[in-house]
């Protein structure tokens, strides 16, 4: 065993109940050819789904399981239970209602195209997702046990919550971003580290989306998993379906949508649903990245008043931010929009016909997870419309750092604390520079908070998306000559530090020189004797 990590094996099960409206044999053959995944068609016998599922799981022993069913045929909780019994990760199971999201929306051939994409997307998301840990689940006891009546406990409910990796967490350096954004104040500071009150956590994953150090993990809902699913859903080579839009929604939103379809309504065929813990967790990377991966439109279906976290302000703010950036870059702001179930066949749900970026080939890997690729892709896609644009907003997850050379001492504390590598130290001969790359900056503010000369305004951070800064890539924002010790030859200070000392000490500085200006701290004592 040791450190070996084997690639998870997937299994797709399809319910015979979907036949003949959906050509299951053709679907199985396609999935097998395209992904090499075992696909089994479960025979249609009333009440036998469980036993067939157990039988298949015993013989195949997969790590991840996707089940394509007709509406109401099988429950997610039951599937999860049977899968757990077979030793499958509790979060490695997905149920896709192909009746609601494929069959009822179009002709058999259109339904087939949708079914292909939906199954492939969910499968790849599960296969990309790392195994969950016991800490990712919280048990809820739903019944009260009284002294007189020892009721049977329905301790069957468990919720998924994120975990905080204290080794990566930057709370010690002053980062409080997750604490500030948590809608239910489930995150708290304990002994200098962030700790999660698991009982209080609503599982919205907003904290994960804002952590600059990627110290918070919500299983199955990371950027890599989302990108894996989106790349399948939007891959032009996999299906002729056009145009394609991505409809982000939470479990509650999904239930509302499925009930809506069950009551005889439809929603436009091109919208492909992607379930996330809460739509408030979707950041700018996801919205813009989804468009770059080939979606013509991105829709967000909010669960409205049913939301336990009540986080519509974050969700609205993030959508508005994406719209502002699209507009500033000369693209249509309505490519990203909030949707309601009032009239899915009306103009609100109408898909745009063209893509932001022409996507003829398979979408580029890393478009969402790699901020450099995201920025490059977005600038290329919008270059012909508006090459220079700026959007300033306190919540925007990009920043621009500037340095005041007269007060900066080139101590490089900022480069040492920068969690994303946006600020870096570069040595060039006898000079040391601080370089900055706006594409990597999340505007977390740690550089400003830790700057010893912040009172003198040595370093400034503005939360803004600036096409000019983004296009220039890594830039030198300050440079200072290194002073070498006259005794040992080691670099011991920057010229800017001494300049700053001279300003601060005034006349006293002359008394200290030349010992301070010529020798390193180690040699200073030696040469004085």
């Amino acid at each position: 065993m040791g450190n070996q990590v084997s690639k998870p094996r997937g299994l797709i099960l399809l319910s015979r109940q979907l036949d003949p409206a959906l050509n299951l044999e053709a679907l199985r053959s396609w999935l097998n050819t395209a992904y090499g995944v075992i696909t089994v068609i479960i025979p249609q016998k009333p009440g036998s789904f469980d036993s067939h599922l157990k039988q298949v799981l015993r013989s195949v022993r997969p790590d991840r399981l996707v089940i394509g069913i007709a509406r109401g045929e099988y429950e997610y909780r039951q599937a999860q239970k049977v899968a757990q019994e077979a030793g499958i990760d509790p979060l490695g199971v997905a149920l896709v209602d192909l009746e609601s999201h494929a069959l009822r929306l179009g002709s058999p051939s259109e339904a087939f195209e949708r079914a292909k994409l939906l199954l492939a997307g969910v499968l790849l998301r599960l296969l990309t997702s790392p195994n969950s840990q016991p800490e990712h689940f919280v048990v809820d006891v739903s019944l009260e046990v009284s002294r007189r009546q020892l009721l049977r406990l329905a301790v069957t409910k468990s919720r998924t919550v994120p975990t905080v990796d204290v080794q990566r967490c930057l709370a010690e350096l002053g980062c409080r971003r997750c604490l500030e954004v948590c809608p239910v104040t489930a995150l708290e500071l304990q002994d200098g580290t962030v700790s999660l009150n698991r009982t209080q956590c609503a599982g919205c994953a907003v904290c994960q989306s804002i952590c600059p150090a990627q110290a918070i993990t919500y299983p199955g809902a990371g950027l890599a998993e989302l990108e894996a699913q989106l790349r399948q859903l939007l891959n032009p080579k996999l299906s002729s379906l056009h145009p394609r839009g991505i409809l982000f929604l939470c479990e509650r939103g999904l239930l509302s949508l499925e009930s809506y379809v069950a009551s005889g309504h439809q929603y436009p065929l091109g919208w492909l649903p992607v379930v996330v813990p809460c739509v408030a967790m979707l950041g700018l990377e996801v919205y813009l990245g989804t468009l770059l991966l080939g979606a013509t439109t991105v829709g967000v279906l909010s669960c409205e008043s049913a939301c336990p976290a009540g986080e519509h302000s974050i969700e609205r703010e993030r959508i508005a931010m994406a719209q502002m950036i699209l507009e500033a870059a000369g693209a249509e702001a309505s490519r990203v929009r909030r949707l309601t179930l009032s009239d899915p066949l009306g103009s609100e749900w109408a898909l745009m016909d063209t893509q932001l970026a022409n996507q003829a080939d398979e979408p580029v890997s890393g478009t969402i997870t790699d901020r450099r690729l995201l920025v490059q892709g977005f600038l290329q896609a919008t270059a012909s419309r508006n090459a220079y644009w700026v959007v300033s907003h306190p919540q925007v997850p990009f920043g621009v750092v500037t340095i005041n050379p007269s007060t900066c001492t080139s101590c490089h504390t900022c480069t040492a604390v920068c969690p994303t590598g946006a600020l870096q130290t570069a040595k060039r001969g006898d000079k040391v520079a601080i370089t900055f790359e706006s594409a990597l900056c999340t505007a977390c503010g740690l550089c400003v908070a830790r700057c010893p000369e912040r009172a003198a305004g040595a370093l400034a951070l503005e939360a803004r998306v600036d096409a000019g800064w983004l296009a220039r890539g890594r830039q030198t924002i300050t440079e200072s000559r290194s002073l070498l010790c006259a005794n040992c030859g080691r670099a011991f200070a920057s010229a800017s530090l001494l300049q700053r000392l001279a300003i601060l000490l005034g006349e006293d500085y002359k008394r200290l020189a030349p010992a301070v200006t010529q020798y390193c701290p180690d040699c200073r004592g030696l040469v004085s004797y």
Partner: protein
Amino acid sequence: MPKRHARVRPSTAHASEEAWTPADLAALRAMLYRVAAVAFLSPEPARLTWLRQIAKWCQQFGSRLALFPFFCWWSRLFVLLRSDTEVTLAALQEEYVQLFPSRCPLYESWYLVQSGAQRAGHILRLQETYRQAGLALDPTFGESPDHLSVELEFMATLCSREAEGWQGREMETVHYCLRQERAFLTLHLGQWIRELAREIRAHCVEPFYATLAEASAALVVHDQDLTRALQHAVRW
């Protein structure tokens, strides 16, 4: 303590139903802690036979146990135990010697205490915890009070008492046991079992001990939540 194996067992009367009585649930937890306690002892024929029997016996609870999020880890362990080829006594003995004395010591103080002097104090405090519960380590057992099997067996004993409390409707006993269990998990097992599981996973060759450690850690994490939730759910 670890010599006492099964006592209260969950009732099989409702094996097909989804709900648990609190007594059954406590008995089940006691059994799982006991399985883990025995499995972390040096492998012997009688112990392995008992573990295999329990793994087979638990099969009838499969669908009920699968209601708990920790069960996928235990399910993997039971699958291994039920297989005569995947887990053999000789392989377990070899792996046990390779892993535990040096690479992944099974002692709490190894993970939580820095110096030898502190270790002595730590062990004394553990003994005091056992004593307060009316228990003492069998002197013939030959292991330290901070050995993983002793701690797991202590939890098994508390859960058994809790089960008896529920059965006899002695709510003071139930409440006392829940408080003790929660405190012990928070202050002791919960502090180091994840690190131990990581160490075992990094060093093991056969899957058995890594699976066992993962299953034990999952139970400990789960029970920290469960005991808290039960404490709040019980109305006084």
